[in-house]
């Protein structure tokens, strides 16, 4: 059986071509001038560039208080279902603003991942595979690898959360650290993007000029794709530093800061908009913490109250700014919550019958896929899992999900070959 390659590591070939293309005139010709392909102008933002935006509801949002309400049943809890902008589709009354945006969104109500563990559930949902079959990259790393323009100095894969990070994580797997996520803890910029206080701007210019001279001297002795990549990483660093404001949400208009709300999640949603507008390929905003083993209902009034407005504002803005049709939105978590309400008025981990919301690029707006039974205890129509969803994400942004990555000579399917995209969800 022969495999076909949707992705023949275009980036690598590009590096090589660039590299070989600039070699002419250097080999053995020590006196010739040295081409500076690395001083490329800032890239134009590509109008066709696709993005992936993940809203990660850490801990596991209850589908019954959000996308798949079951009012007036033994499992439904106290809240009502309200109509949305899609006739016939109802969601929980805890999401009144989101309800008005439903005509942009689609709901998959028939997810069964058979996984009730936080770590394993997160692994399934973000990589599209079970952890036991090897190490696979996060959706954002895959997106950064396949969607990011090669000359974009900004990181291709950014996560925004309350705290932590600043440096690359380890979710790039075989795609490498280049595509691992950068965590902007509390919305702060990535590590080391400020020149050290002890080095003046003039001194920095001079030391970089000298560095380039040392590099040029060395390149006359030997030049390889690796040495070029190292040199250009400094150029990229300088460009990133020059665009450091990209990470500064306070540069957004005051009116927008107001619209999104001054709380953390509001600021993070606005930062996500800013990053997408500036060309970052994959952004994930984490909203913590939905692990409602206790007081599910009281807590969600507050938590979803915080979520609803900035989330719907973000959709509204992405639509208004023309980003929506090239940005895939996924609202997901490790799993949903049990229909059974426990003695602490909480709901527990539940991967058996729960929901994910998608929208934007490549997604059939207004669609509702699959069904659970009357009180939400099982999937009764179109059961899917993380594998199907992962194929769907890739297809939605125009990637053939049956393609393969070339990981140092090893060909690895981009998505689980045993699963397939959810066709009726694709626009």
């Amino acid at each position: 059986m022969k495999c076909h390659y949707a992705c023949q590591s275009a980036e690598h070939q590009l590096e090589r071509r660039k590299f070989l293309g600039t070699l002419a005139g250097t080999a053995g010709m020590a006196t010739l001038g040295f081409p500076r392909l690395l001083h490329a102008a800032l890239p134009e933002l590509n109008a066709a560039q696709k993005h992936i935006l993940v809203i990660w509801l850490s801990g596991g949002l209850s589908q019954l208080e959000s996308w798949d309400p079951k009012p007036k049943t033994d499992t439904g809890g106290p809240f009502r279902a309200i109509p949305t902008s899609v006739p016939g589709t109802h969601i929980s009354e805890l999401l009144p603003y989101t309800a008005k945006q439903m005509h942009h969104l689609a709901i998959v109500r028939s997810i069964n991942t058979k996984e009730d563990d936080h770590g394993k559930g997160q692994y399934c949902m973000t990589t599209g595979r079970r952890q036991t079959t090897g190490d696979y990259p996060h959706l954002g790393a895959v997106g950064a690898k396949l969607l990011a323009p090669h000359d974009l100095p900004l990181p291709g894969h950014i996560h925004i959360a309350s705290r932590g990070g600043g440096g690359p994580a380890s979710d790039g797997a075989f795609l490498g650290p280049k595509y691992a996520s950068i965590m902007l803890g509390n919305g702060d910029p990535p590590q080391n993007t400020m020149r050290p206080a002890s080095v003046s701007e003039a001194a920095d210019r001079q030391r970089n000029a000298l560095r380039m001279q040392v590099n040029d001297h060395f390149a006359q002795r030997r030049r390889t794709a690796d040495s070029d990549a190292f040199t250009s990483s400094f150029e990229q660093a300088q460009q990133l530093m020059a665009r450091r404001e990209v990470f500064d949400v306070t540069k957004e208009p005051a009116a927008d800061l107001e619209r999104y709300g001054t709380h953390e999640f509001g600021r993070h949603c606005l930062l996500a908009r800013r990053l997408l507008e500036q060309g970052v390929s994959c952004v994930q905003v984490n909203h913590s913490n939905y692990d409602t083993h206790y007081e599910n209902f009281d807590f969600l009034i507050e938590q979803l109250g915080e979520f609803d407005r900035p989330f719907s504002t973000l959709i509204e803005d992405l639509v208004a700014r023309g980003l929506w049709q090239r940005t895939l939105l996924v609202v997901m978590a490790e799993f949903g919550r049990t229909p059974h309400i426990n003695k602490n008025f909480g709901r527990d981990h539940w991967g058996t019958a729960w929901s994910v919301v998608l929208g934007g690029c490549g997604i059939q707006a207004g669609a509702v896929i699959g069904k659970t039974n009357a009180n939400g205890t099982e999937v009764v129509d179109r059961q899917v899992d993380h594998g199907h969803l992962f194929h769907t994400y890739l297809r939605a942004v125009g990637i053939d999900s049956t393609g393969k990555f070339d990981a140092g000579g090893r060909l690895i399917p981009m998505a689980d070959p045993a699963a397939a995209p959810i066709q009726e969800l694709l626009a």
Partner: protein
Amino acid sequence: MPRLAARQAAPRPEPARSFVAGLLLGLMLIAAAGRADEPALHEKIDALVESASLGPVAPPAADADFLRRVCLDLAGTIPDAPTARAFLDDPALNKREVLVDRLLADPRFARQMQFVFDAMLMERRPQKIVPVAEWQAYLFQSFKDNKPLDQLVREILAADGVEPKLRPAARFYLDRDGDANVLTRDIGRLFFGRDLQCAQCHDHPQIEDYLQSEYYGLLAFVNRGVLFIDTKDNTKTYYAEKADGEVNYKSVFTGDARDHVLPKLPQGAPVDEPLLGKDEQYVVAPAANVRPVPKYSRRAQLAALATNGTSGAFNRNLANRLWAHMMGRGLLHPSDMQHSGNPAVQAQLLALLGDELVRMKFDTRAFLRQLALTRAYQRTSETPRPADMKLDPGAISPTLAAWNAEAQRLAGTLDSLQSANAQVTTELNASYETFSQGATAREVAEKSRAEVKKASDEISAALAAAIKDVAAKDDILKALVEARDKAQAAVAKLPEDKQLAEAAGQFKTRAEQLGAQAAAARQLVAEKTPQVQAASLRLAEADKALQAAVAGVGVARAALEAAEAKSRAAVETLRAAKAQNRELTLRIADAQAALDYQTLAATVVASQSAAQASGDQLAVVKSQMVTTPEQLAQAESAAKTTAEKASADRAAAEQAWSALGERSTVRFTLTPLKPLSPESLAWSTLQAVGLVDQQRAALEEQARKDVEAMANLSPEERTQALARLLEERIDEKLRGHLPAFVSLFGQQPGQAPTFQATVHQALFLANGGLLSGWLNPGGNNLTERLSKIEQSAALAEELYLTVLTRRPTLEEQAQLATLWEAAKADRAGAARDLVWSLLASTEFRFNH
């Protein structure tokens, strides 16, 4: 490093001794390497490497490059300036060999091997059960003791974490959660050079050598492993093993299935293992909170069989990984993709290295020494100049023709080998079927024998109870009969006594009742006796059946082993032919590229002289007194066309030359650029900025005192003890800086290392607090030392020797003179930025 011994405070006597020690070690190693009349391994290697390439062969590296390269590879860090100066100025002809031996004897060698094998075997996996520090200390100690590599791997593969001294070795298993599939993949990759992961669910879709049967043969060694958490002992976790657990699989593509898969090394024979009955399988049987210990451990078999020197795949894999460490690229590349579609660039060379590693008893130092002494290792990494290529087309063509003929001959044999292999595979499948049926029959016989035995035991127990019952009843009956007779005698003597007569009557009745019961019991015994005999017969039959089944399995397994052996031979022959064919094809392509370049170069000569001629012609036309505009235009156009052609030809030739250089790198006739490992980058930076020297200065006095306090040491031992003590103490002080480098420059956890330059690395080097802190003047660090040097020439030499391990060029000296003059107001700032420029350069980032 190593501050090499030669530099330890000039007036001290150590250098000479250490030098002698180095020489002695070298001589010992040479003696170990082989008989005197045989060429040394490094000579054999060079002969093979150079015989396979018709392309350019790069000249030897300059001393400075060699020094930096070998220090980085064997000591994991750049040398300090005094060492560099001493080496560069040393006129001795054998100084490279002496340096290699000194480095192998340096304590930093064990440290570097610790880093290399940590990264190789754990691939930056996070700490889970075994503390990383203990694992690293175990590796360090192993290389310090020059523990042979086979022993090291044996300890790792046999580890269960119980024996305290070897507990760190269990990190390989434990920090992979003892997951059988993860372990199968990594054992295949890291110890046999074969990444079989894709063969988990079916034969590999792209690589025909990677079979599902091979995956499961390897899995069978580890699938009985279980993580055992000892709740009584501080919840310590061990990697225990059960005695049961069969490996079965089914292809998700073809549905082909096998069960009772026997453990088998990649490209090896199935293990002949004892068939133990259910009750004789354990030394310690599994139970709640009890760590099971099987009598027969498959994992111990894996450890023994892999490392006993007979597994060619294992030996070649280790040799290839050591080669890749020194040469920047494996003979087999990627190191874990050994199959006939991706053969070693020179199979013969890799086979030689595998065999020699065994012959050297897996001595890392001795083996690396041979690699370091090769011309292949000592070549320059500079792109050779076309003029350096001494290619004679007359010499190339016959060799090329011979290679082509050989490739054709090989291609011709492939078909017949293929069909022979298919035939053998059919036989093998049939044998497997028989064996599998036999194994199932044995299980059935074992089960039915157990049932029969149980029934037999039950009936025997019932008979015994009945016999006991009869005896008990007889005993009472006897007493009753005696009492009845005596009572009747009394009644005869006292006939009037009614009460007595009544009592006698009761005795009689009871005796009669019991007599009847005893008779019934006897009847039961009579009934049970033949049943017991029948059961015993049935048991004998079941025993016989079991024996027959066991014998049947034995026969089937012998047949299977024979079929396996035949199949293995056929497969290996076929694969070897394929690999050989592929190797030759690639070699021919490289040689052809060299020939093509020559043609291009000849074209360049021709087009350049044409351009010259038409240029001359144009000059002539222009200089003529009378020239028509047509003549001028024609001459100008001709000059332009020929000049353009000459320039295009030259560009094409240069590109072809560069591509040829890439091909030479793969053939080890040109040294590649190797990125510094994260650890080497960290230590070289620490060395360059002066932190290592700072620590040495702070720790040396105490270390000397501690060594002087040691009893019974010869002067040589004392020198060595001091070097070791200092190395360990400096390492302890500075190792905390490594994680920052490892997390940014290392690969993602569990992945094979590949070079990636990321913006975060550049930002870390450019702006990170760590490096900028080290560069601020203070504590006699490099910045401070440089800022005090007045003379720019001295400054340049100190700077370049310290950071780049070479002297500055004239151009660089001149530039620094200007810069230093201009920086009079802030020498410290200028020195800091100079050091940074060099540290952030490609020349520093790569081992060249």
